[in-house]
């Protein structure tokens, strides 16, 4: 019963809002805010399922490629830098600058250098999301409990194992936080590059819908990316919970 | 047969208390019964807790940990509504925090607001009493002087030691001029030396400010040293097992009182009741 009530409370507002949108827009003649009915019909036409295959998948492919490269490179570089206090301290202002730089600012330069292809887009995504991962990894690794680190050193745990079972799990809460920031940045980067290059992907689709004044199509693209963003965040939450549970289990025998 | 002698003395005192009519009670904890949670997770914390506190009396509530001492205190403070039973203050049932009552919590680092200075912390509760600002500040300064902190008005709580922070919490309660002062394990989070200083502070303050005091503690020495009476709760679910009058007089100090054989006997008696 209690559970049912909670679900009902969670669902009420979304249903109400969608209902209100449907009802208010039903007789809309404004070109900018077409009836929701029309948008839904257009959504089914456009995206199910050829659009998803031909337009969304390339976007997701670029995103995934760039984002995973950024995570791996960010963590590896971060661990390496954290092991080298002097170097990390020396480079810190530069890294802070690169993180503070709005990554989209370099998209035009990326295009000029690498052209309009997939290579450029992936590079732009990597550049957008690597800095939070890298800097959070450095902070996280450095913050791993000194006592744990010392005791592990005393017991002569081999370096590779120490990294895998002590350093990375210990730093994982902060690494995950950086990776989460990177997720949003990657999505923005992939869409901006697609909008600017107008090749393919959801960004280009939305941009060309704008140029041909196809407003329902634009709305469907916005809604689609809402679902995509929401789903990616949900997946991330799941993954985070798992990582942190692992982390908690690791800590239990240690404390 | 010293203990037998002491016991008879206790019994007569108890009888005298019982003979006194209930209307005299300042605080009446009346068959307090409380259950936390519902259904399968339900846990009865208070069975039926029943005791009275006379005006001006200092009563300590002791009992094994987890026996619901704090739950009783929260009911008296009006912060928790018991499942059944009630607390009466001057005969009127407590519903919500009463106006004439102040509380000192165990965790001073959390009960004081870190973004306010010491004086503002002490003066804050007076806002609700409709006292103009200059008077609030004056009263706060007075109360802080009474606890020996007249030089720390403009510091922040986190700049002070634990013992000093608890003094601020006591000053906050004093400035409120309560008729009933509640203390929840007030000295459990400070070191031993600070603790006995604070105990003596409370003894001294009681003489200046006429208040009814109810203190929850797990420290039997402290309970006997400070109180006029010690109420012992049993655990799971809590009931009053014994109510021990502490006839050590008003003038007490750490050395003579604590080495008094009567102190040792009372302490032993409370301890036996707790272990019972």
């Amino acid at each position, binding site marked *: 019963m209690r559970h049912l009530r909670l679900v009902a409370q969670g669902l009420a507002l979304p249903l109400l809002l969608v209902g209100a949108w449907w009802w208010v827009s039903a007789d809309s003649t404004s070109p900018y805010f077409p009836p929701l009915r029309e948008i839904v019909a257009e959504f089914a036409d456009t995206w199910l399922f050829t659009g998803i295959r031909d337009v969304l998948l390339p976007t997701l492919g670029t995103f995934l490629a760039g984002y995973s490269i950024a995570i791996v490179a960010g963590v590896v570089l971060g661990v390496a830098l954290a092991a080298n206090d002097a170097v990390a301290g020396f480079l810190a202002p530069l890294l802070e600058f690169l993180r503070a730089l709005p990554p989209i600012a370099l998209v035009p330069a990326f295009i000029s250098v690498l052209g309009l292809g997939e290579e450029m887009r992936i590079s732009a995504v990597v550049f957008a999301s690597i800095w939070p991962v890298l800097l959070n990894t450095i902070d996280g690794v450095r913050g791993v409990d000194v006592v744990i680190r010392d005791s592990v050193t005393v017991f002569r745990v081999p370096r590779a194992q120490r990294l895998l079972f002590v350093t990375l799990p210990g730093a994982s809460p902060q690494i995950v936080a950086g990776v989460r920031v990177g997720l949003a940045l990657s999505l923005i980067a992939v869409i901006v590059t697609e909008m600017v290059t107008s090749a393919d992907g959801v960004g280009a689709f939305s941009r060309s819908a704008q140029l041909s004044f196809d407003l329902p199509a634009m709305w469907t693209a916005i809604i689609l990316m809402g679902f995509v963003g*929401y789903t990616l965040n949900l997946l991330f939450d799941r993954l985070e919970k798992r990582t942190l549970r692992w982390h908690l289990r690791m800590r239990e025998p240690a404390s | 047969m010293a203990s037998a002698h002491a016991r008879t003395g206790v019994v007569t005192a108890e009888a005298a208390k019982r003979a006194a009519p209930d209307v005299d009670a300042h605080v009446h904890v009346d068959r307090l019964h409380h259950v936390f949670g519902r259904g399968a997770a339900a846990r009865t914390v208070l069975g039926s807790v029943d005791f009275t506190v006379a005006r001006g009396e200092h009563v300590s509530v002791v009992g094994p940990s987890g026996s619901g001492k704090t739950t009783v205190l929260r009911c008296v403070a009006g912060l928790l509504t018991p499942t059944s039973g009630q607390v009466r203050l001057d005969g009127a049932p407590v519903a919500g925090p009463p106006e004439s009552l102040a509380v000192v*919590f165990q965790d001073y680092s959390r*009960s004081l607001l870190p973004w306010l200075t010491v004086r503002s912390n002490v003066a804050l509760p007076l806002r609700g009493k409709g006292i103009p600002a200059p008077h609030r500040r004056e009263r706060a300064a007075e109360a802080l002087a009474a606890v020996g902190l007249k030089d720390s008005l403009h510091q922040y709580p986190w700049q002070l030691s634990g013992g000093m922070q608890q003094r601020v919490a006591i000053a906050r309660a004093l400035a409120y001029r309560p008729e009933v002062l509640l203390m929840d394990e007030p000295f459990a989070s400070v070191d031993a030396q600070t603790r006995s200083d604070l105990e003596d502070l409370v003894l001294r303050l009681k003489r200046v400010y006429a208040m009814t005091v109810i203190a929850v503690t797990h420290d039997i020495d402290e309970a006997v040293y400070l109180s006029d009476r010690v109420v012992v709760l049993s655990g799971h679910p809590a009931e009053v097992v014994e109510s021990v009058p502490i006839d050590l007089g008003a003038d007490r100090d750490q050395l003579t009182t604590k080495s008094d054989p009567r102190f040792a006997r009372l302490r032993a008696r409370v301890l036996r009741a707790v272990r019972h």
Partner: protein
Amino acid sequence: MALTQPHRGRAAEHGAALVSVAVRRIGLLVLALAGWELLARILDSRAVPAVAPAFDALVSTVPSGPFWAALGGTLQSWGLGMLLAAGIGLPLGLLIGSSPLAMRATRGVVEFLRTVPAIMLVPLAVLLFGATVEMKVVLITLSAVWPLLVHAAYGIGHVDAVARDSMRAFRLRRRDRVVFLYLPSALPLVATGLRVAATVALLISIGAEIVTSAPGIGYEIALGQANNAAPRSFVYVLLSGLLGVGINLGFGALERRVLFWHASQRARSTA
């Protein structure tokens, strides 16, 4: 005398530390410039200028009107968007956060709306408002409002249970409780929300300028690249980075001032 001795020693030590930091900063700058030069030579592209032409562009661009106009264009929309987002997001978040029911009821909608990449709204906003400041302000508001709303909502829920009990026991009036207990308790998370929102706002402002040619730093970046004026474009890239650093430093300083009582700031000042 004996007292001044160690003091002087510490001052000298402090001075030496400052000098060493300065030396390292300059070293890093030199190294970064060398890296840039190397990169430019390797790429050998018109799009990535070497250090010398970029420096020339810097010297000629900074005193010019368009430079300040671009900076003003970005800052104006950033500031207006932040004001609107804070004006909407903070009160709404505080209200939602103070009711568990409102929290549960709105969670789904908020989670959905905040994950829509704001940049997706650029085409719609351009059609509605054209490539204008209004367009940017709307986009910035729509992207910055979520971190503010969410952080404020969680912040107001972060009131310490003991502090709440003690304020209740002392019968603090509702208004006093809000002012002296609830709002200060929410402040640390609100500050975090502000910092996140400020960063997102800058990103969206520059992104919208690049995509739509609305006036501002992003537009100048794109224009420079399109006109084969890469050195000038890089001056603006640098400017956007400095703005980002400035926002971080500014909001960091604000946090230190407002949250001086918070454990994180206290630890920093004693360290």
